[in-house]
């Protein structure tokens, strides 16, 4: 156990050091010196990975809060806290990454007062801002509980359902809008990825990844923090994941056929290979795994299917935002070491913050706690008063 711990610590420190150095480079020498971006290729991995994938990886938050609080599937309640934590951390990190990518990061607040409702980016900016606030509020009970602040806790719990609804609406909007961003460049994108239904693809894949990430992080928490794994809950998520992946696969095939670009998927070439890597990881492999009951019922099987889905849709978003645009603009882009270093630092920082939160905050409440909390949320005031009375 000991040497492994040191290894991870060393890796972590190394990533942090490289990230800090790249940060200094970015903010003292500018984007030109710290990235491989150019006039021909103005968006790199800080947008492709940190923002597009980051927001997708944080989609578990709205998927699961909707499942538990709106659809009232109580079994899922035990894993809701770590999922909200991941989502909250995810959005904070996305905003952090934006500070690196924006040419003038100190103007990041401008959309607040300078409106352009015709701009998808404006809509995304607003939704992300509001949703990060919603997530902070959804997450706050965990902190408030830890410090036993009863008053604010009551307030947050009272508005929880409207908050959840708002969160789901905002997520639906900006998850799909990240796809809408690319609708304006039909001529610049390789036809395997440009589609008029990009917003729908981005939304459905966000749900798939939200489910997969929930499976992934619950498994990890179980392994590394010795927490009890709710296998039945994860299996259920696995089944929903099959349905969502199936829907995505149908949409994808129909879309390729409708646009008459089906033949492109067998035409040898750089884009085709990346297409097949994407489709294999995101759809074929996980569906093949999850459709077997033996795999689905095994924690390890679920875990690897989830990992595959996550990697597959990361490839998908990188393909949309890099591979497809490379083909249209005729240039090759590969990130500079400093771009990779910043991204790696942000990911490592996210893992570290998750670890710290799990250690110091009541992330996995005892069954009893979660039941009363659930009761407090779900039941109308009248019934609750009655319950208390009955308890006398």
């Amino acid at each position, binding site marked *: 156990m000991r040497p492994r711990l040191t290894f991870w610590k060393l890796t972590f420190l190394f990533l942090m050091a490289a990230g800090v150095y790249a940060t200094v480079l970015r903010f003292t020498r500018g984007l030109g010196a710290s990235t491989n971006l150019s006039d021909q290729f103005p968006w790199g991995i800080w947008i492709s990975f940190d923002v597009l994938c980051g927001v997708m990886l944080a989609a578990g938050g709205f998927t699961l809060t909707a499942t538990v609080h709106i*659809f009232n599937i109580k079994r899922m309640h035990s894993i809701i806290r770590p999922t909200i934590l991941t989502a909250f951390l995810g959005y904070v990190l996305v905003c952090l990454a934006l500070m690196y990518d924006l040419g003038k990061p100190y103007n990041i607040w401008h959309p607040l007062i300078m409106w352009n409702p015709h*701009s998808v980016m404006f*809509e995304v900016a607003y939704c992300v801002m509001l949703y990060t606030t919603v997530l902070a509020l959804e997450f706050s009970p965990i902190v408030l509980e830890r410090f036993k602040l009863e008053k604010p806790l009551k307030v947050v719990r009272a508005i929880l359902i409207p908050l959840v609804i708002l969160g*789901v609406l905002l997520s639906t909007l900006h998850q799909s809008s990240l796809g809408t961003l690319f609708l*304006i460049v*039909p001529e610049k994108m390789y036809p395997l990825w440009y589609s008029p239904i990009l917003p729908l693809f981005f939304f459905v894949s966000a749900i798939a990844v939200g489910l997969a990430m929930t499976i992934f992080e619950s498994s990890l928490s179980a392994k590394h923090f010795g927490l009890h794994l709710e296998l039945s809950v994860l299996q259920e998520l696995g089944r929903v994941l099959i349905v969502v992946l199936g829907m995505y696969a149908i949409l994808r095939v129909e879309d390729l056929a409708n646009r008459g670009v089906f033949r492109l998927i067998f035409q040898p070439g750089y884009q085709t290979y990346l297409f097949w890597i994407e489709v294999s990881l995101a759809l074929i492999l996980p569906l093949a795994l999850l459709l077997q009951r033996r795999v689905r019922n095994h924690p390890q099987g679920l875990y690897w299917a989830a990992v595959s889905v996550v990697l597959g849709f990361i490839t998908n978003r990188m393909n949309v935002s890099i591979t497809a645009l490379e083909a249209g603009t005729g240039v090759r882009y590969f990130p500079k070491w400093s771009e990779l270093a910043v991204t790696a630092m942000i990911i490592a920082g996210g893992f570290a913050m998750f670890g710290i939160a799990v250690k110091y905050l009541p992330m996995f409440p005892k069954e009893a706690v979660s039941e009363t909390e659930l009761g407090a949320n779900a*039941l109308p005031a009248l019934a609750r008063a009655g319950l208390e009375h009955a308890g006398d």
Partner: protein
Amino acid sequence: MSKALLYDSTMCIGCKQCEQACAEQNKLPYDDNIAGEQFQSEHKFTAVLTRGDKFMRRLCMNCQEPACASVCPVGAIKKTALGPVTYDASKCMGCRYCMVACPFSVPKYEWGKLAPKVRKCTMCPDRVATGKQTACAEICPTGATKFGDRDALLAEAQQRIHDNPDKYVNHVYGMSEVGGTSVFLLSSVPFETFGYRTDISKDPMPMLTYRVLSHIPDFVPLGGMLLGGIWWITHRRDEVALAEALERENREKRGGKQ
């Protein structure tokens, strides 16, 4: 009255005086090296391209419905009624969506600076506002670059093709591309020779995203209603169960007292 530029490449002699005038107007450096550069950049807003004995200008097309302006989240880029597509650096936050979105890949960025600006031809908005021609049109010795009212210039361009059908490619570039632009080009060789795509959409690009965005005002109240409704229905069962339990308990209590 909206203004425009007409560039007739058959009249161009490749003297590059427009490049120089543009540099002066926009306070950009200009020397022989820069004159040799065959592309637009953050220090060169217009470039006269040479292919054999043919010339062609590249510059911002100042589209009628510019993609760059529609995507800018802070409204730093604007289409003015007079024609120029202007840029306000103090609003810009540097997201570079305008660069991605422009169908002609016109906007360039000051990658080397710590407070970088987007750079492109803005059709001399200050001059145009005071009734003057753009700097490039004013200096042009042959009239290859001509400034004027958009409608009149378009008619003139069509007339020139009509009068000399053998001399020109039968197309006024900019008349219908992306819904029309404020820069018209005439050429004797295919526009593709100089990197101008002719397979480009004839509809304004902003429609592509606006079609989706315009559904948001409907989506929010409907979605909210739907989610609230599902919540109400799924939790109704709990309520009923609880009420029944309470009833039973009360009855038992009452029963105990009697």
